[in-house]
């Protein structure tokens, strides 16, 4: 089946044209209809920038220097114009509901500002549509909330408003940039359940950027792991979480505590740190920190290759001879199945 969104060979640059830095180079992924896709990585891996590039809303000084962005239309993937995709195909939920809602607009006006101008809705139509959307995202007393200002709401409610605003354009893909990072734990759970419910009810696809592997485990079907501006592994969550095919993914997963993790020993950690955009090594960027690195790794060109005996794709050279016992990370957290949002 045709994916709903495909990003290929995305290159993002900063700095001058003669000596550019590339915070993201050759990142790519594709998202199927109705799928929840996780984009995970440490801070600085380029995951949030990649997501922003999908809507063309890059921060000042960052530009797209290459890559193809395609959205499904009439059964085929076609390159899209940002203005067109923002109004229809793609919606986006931002990380900070404190700063992402315009403080000078009432909730109701804010939620439908985009479609109202596009479709020429009357104030009444826009208001009633806003109240419907606020009800859909589980706002208590939506008609009253529509008249409130953003600063009068709690963080969790603001994030619901943010989601309603993104849904107002009837997108087929919802991009979520760490939507629960700024919230406290109890509220995080509510927002995750809400996103899950909306995905099921609307049949939309969700791209979830996060550094929280537990969130990916609970919410996502497939995942891409980013390191130093590149995707190093991609596959189903079940597969990647139990049989990672890249030493970086494996290291990340091992560093995650489970209920069985002994408390008297330090957590497993990958030695060293992620290189910044200015000092990335040649070849495999993870090689200097990798316990399995070979001399050939320093000359490796980045490709995501198929892995023998696994549905995942990996950038690791030694994928065939690095088997090892499967990691048991299923006990960690249960996926979001039932429950209500």
């Amino acid at each position: 089946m045709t994916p709903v969104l495909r990003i290929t060979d995305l290159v993002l640059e900063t700095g001058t044209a003669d000596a550019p830095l590339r915070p993201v180079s050759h990142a790519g992924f594709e998202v199927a209809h109705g799928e929840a896709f996780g984009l995970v990585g440490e801070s600085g891996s380029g995951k949030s920038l990649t997501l922003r590039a999908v809507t063309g809303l890059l921060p000042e000084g960052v530009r797209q220097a290459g890559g193809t962005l395609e959205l499904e239309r009439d059964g085929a993937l076609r390159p899209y114009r940002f203005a067109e995709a923002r109004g229809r195909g793609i919606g986006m939920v931002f990380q900070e509901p404190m700063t992402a809602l315009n403080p000078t607009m009432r909730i109701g006006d804010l939620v439908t500002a985009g479609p109202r101008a596009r479709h020429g809705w009357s104030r009444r139509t826009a208001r009633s549509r806003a109240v419907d959307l606020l009800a859909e995202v589980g706002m208590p007393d939506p008609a009253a909330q529509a008249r409130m200002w953003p600063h009068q709401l709690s963080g969790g409610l603001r994030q619901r408003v943010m989601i309603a605003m993104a849904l107002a354009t009837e997108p087929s893909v919802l991009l979520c940039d760490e939507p629960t990072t700024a919230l406290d734990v109890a509220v995080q759970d509510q927002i995750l359940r809400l996103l899950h419910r909306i995905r099921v009810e609307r049949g939309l696809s969700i791209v979830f950027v996060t550094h929280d592997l537990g969130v990916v485990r609970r919410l996502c079907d497939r995942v891409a792991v980013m390191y130093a501006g590149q995707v190093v592994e991609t596959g189903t969550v079940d597969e990647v979480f139990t049989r990672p095919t890249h030493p970086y993914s494996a290291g990340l997963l091992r560093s995650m505590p489970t209920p069985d993790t002994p408390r008297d020993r330090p957590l497993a950690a990958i030695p060293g740190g992620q290189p910044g955009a200015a000092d990335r090594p040649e070849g495999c960027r993870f090689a200097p920190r990798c316990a399995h690195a070979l001399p050939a790794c320093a000359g490796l060109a980045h490709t995501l290759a198929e892995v023998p005996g696994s549905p995942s794709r990996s950038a690791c050279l030694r994928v065939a001879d690095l088997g090892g016992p499967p990691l048991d990370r299923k006990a960690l957290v249960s996926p979001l199945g039932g429950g209500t949002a």
Partner: protein
Amino acid sequence: MTGRGRFWFVGRRLLQAIPLTLVLLLLVFAMLKVVPGDPALQVAGPRASAATLQAIRVHLGLDQPVWLQFVHYLGRVATGDLGTTATGSTKVSTLIASGTPVTLVLLAVSTVFTVVIAGATALLAARRPDGLADRLINVVAAFGVGVPTFWLGIVLLAGVALPTGAFPIGGWGDTPATVLRAAVLPALALSVSVAPVLMASLRSGIVEARRSEYHAAAQAAGVRGWTLTRRFVLRNAAVPPVSLLAALTTLLLSGAVVVESTFGLPGLGLSLTQAAQNRDFNVIQGLTLVFSLAVVAVNLVGDVLVALLDPRVEV
């Protein structure tokens, strides 16, 4: 803020203005008290006898305790009695009544110019921060702040009014059309020093709004074009300049004093200049009061406008 919240906000602000006004009146009253010299001596002349001086003091109420004099002063101000000019020919209140429309028109036209100039240049400069237009406007703005108003007034008279003949060489008009024409050049001279300050504030507000997350979030939600500019940029960027414009009124008023002299406009500013030259204290006192009250009123309006623009403002 809800509608009722706004109502109370305005009410509270009005109440807060009352003590401020009283302090102002006290200061203006004290002005005369700290001026060296004996008013009775001034009235009677240097050769008056002690008895005459005392009689005059009683007549003027100067023999009473200062607080009682202040109460009497409040009573006179409340009835609009601000005394007469030094020559005794005209009431100060009459002088103020005739000068106020001139100064008001001058300030109104100048405010319109200021807002238009600042708005247009700020939008242009903010299009590309640190771009060519931005830097050019910045240089011109620095020049505008630095140029003395009286000099600019003379340049406008000699460089525009004289050669074109489109504007009067000073003086005021008697019909709305001639009044407006007479106000254009002095208002422009007045705006040039104030507009850059407002422009800088508006420009940085626009740049900040465009870089904000809510601007990106609005774009992601399909908001674009004029709606984006109006509701997600200008609306947010307008808050600091509005309160700034209220604060800049003092600058406009002092500028008006200069400009009215340069262009010979029969407004309050010209009266103030002449009164200062003639040491006409009643007039100075009356005008100071009017100017101070105007500043209080404008700041009140500014505060209310800011509260209407930014719902987070609560007092």
